[in-house]
């Protein structure tokens, strides 16, 4: 099937048109998951680069700077499934078209996942948050993407659509390299699903930047911990901007589980994170500095998450 034949098919739905300029040969805004998948497969068959368009805050900047030269853009904001934002006892589902500004409007999302909301709130300005999605942040797979460590800590699972009925993947396995994710041709991210935290589980996210707003993380720290009778019963700790991808540091979690939170257990978790970090040196900071800072952030984030659990009790 060529794009011309698709044109006929999409006319019946929400087809907007097609044009040629600057390499971009088509823009589609389909209404269904299946149409997105066939557009992606079609492009792959013709060796064309198709890009999904969520908020576009990375896509447009990269396209206009020439960093990325897509042949086709597929807007995924007109699909029912990507516009789902659902909170129930079992899961919190955030669809791929939900902009950060919309997430901030849900008070119980803030209560349940304060760390993830903090991370989303750090991405860009008010204007950028009016468009930017956490799924776009995740798919863009920048080492410094702010929502990624927070999603990993929260235990988020990627809900991936494909022609075979879809598949699920933990966020820590989704980002595979700088700017690279685990999606195969014909696949896209429908949304992320986070297990609904109990009232004794809270998360926190901190990043360090040279300014107070609008900058890229030098280091980031995502923490989610749960307590029973003062003892930590669950801990997921993730680091960002200090390795090619954000990382789940399992040993840091293990350093906390089974213990009361003390300076000593925190120091063990911090040491595990510094060890797991393999940062680069650049204009934002040297590798040694980043290792130091990521430890400090982890320590603070653990304390914030802990105090959130106590406040909620």
């Amino acid at each position, binding site marked *: 099937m060529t794009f011309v034949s698709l044109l006929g098919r999409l006319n019946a739905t929400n087809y907007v048109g097609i044009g040629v300029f600057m390499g971009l040969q088509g823009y589609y805004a389909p209404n269904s998951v299946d149409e997105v998948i066939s557009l992606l497969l079609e492009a792959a068959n013709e060796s064309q680069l198709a890009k999904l368009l969520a908020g576009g805050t990375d896509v447009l900047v990269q396209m206009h700077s020439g960093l990325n030269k897509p042949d086709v853009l597929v807007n995924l904001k007109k699909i029912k499934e990507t516009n789902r934002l659902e909170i129930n006892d079992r899961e919190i589902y955030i669809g791929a078209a939900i*902009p950060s500004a919309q997430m901030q409007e849900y008070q119980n999302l803030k209560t349940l996942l304060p760390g993830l909301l903090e991370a989303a709130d750090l991405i860009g300005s*008010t204007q950028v948050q*009016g468009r930017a999605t956490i799924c776009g942040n995740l798919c863009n797979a920048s080492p410094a993407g702010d929502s990624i460590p927070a999603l990993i800590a929260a235990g988020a699972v990627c809900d991936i659509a494909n022609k075979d009925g879809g598949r699920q993947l933990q966020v820590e396995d989704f980002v595979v390299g700088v700017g690279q994710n685990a999606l195969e041709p014909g696949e896209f991210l429908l949304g992320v699903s986070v297990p609904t935290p109990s009232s004794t589980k809270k998360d926190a996210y901190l990043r360090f930047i040279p300014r107070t*707003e609008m900058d890229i993380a030098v280091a980031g720290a995502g923490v989610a911990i749960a307590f029973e009778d003062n003892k930590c019963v669950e801990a997921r700790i993730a680091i960002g901007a200090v390795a090619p991808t954000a990382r789940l540091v399992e040993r840091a979690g293990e350093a906390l589980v089974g213990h009361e939170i003390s300076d000593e257990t925190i120091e063990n978790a911090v040491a595990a994170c510094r060890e797991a970090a393999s940062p680069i040196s650049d204009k934002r900071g040297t590798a040694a500095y980043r290792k130091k800072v990521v430890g400090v952030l982890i320590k603070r984030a653990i304390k914030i998450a802990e105090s959130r659990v106590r406040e909620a009790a």
Partner: protein
Amino acid sequence: MPKLHVETSINGDPVEYLCEPHETMLSVLRDTLGMTGTKEGCGTGDCGACSIQVDGRLVCSCLMLAAEAEDSEIETIEGISGKDGLHVLQSKFLEHAALQCGICTPGFIVASKALLEKNPDPDEETIRYWLAGNLCRCTGYDKIVRAVQDAAKELASPA
């Protein structure tokens, strides 16, 4: 190949235009529709000069494709003043001398209006964080923040 045909609403009026798939909303507003109140500072989402509201959300028009406006409601600086003249924010920007060259001003006014619609009584910190994505290279931010505070006061209890 033909351009894309888009039907949308701008400041309450139905509008149709043709655009290239890669074209931004900013470029269509300014170059196709002649609505040059919306400014371009950077084209990369950093300066906020191109701020508009789309379906009630503040966004950078340089980071949105014109094709994405299909079936949306767009508000630009041109729609801010009413039939009775300037919007309170516009008057307060003048009164407080919250502009010099003026290129950032439409963006600040559109962004401030979006803030006051959401939060009619913002404190200074809220205003500064909300406007952190609007850059001004001439005036400095104090006068701008004062103008927004004063506008909020006047909107709460019109003189």
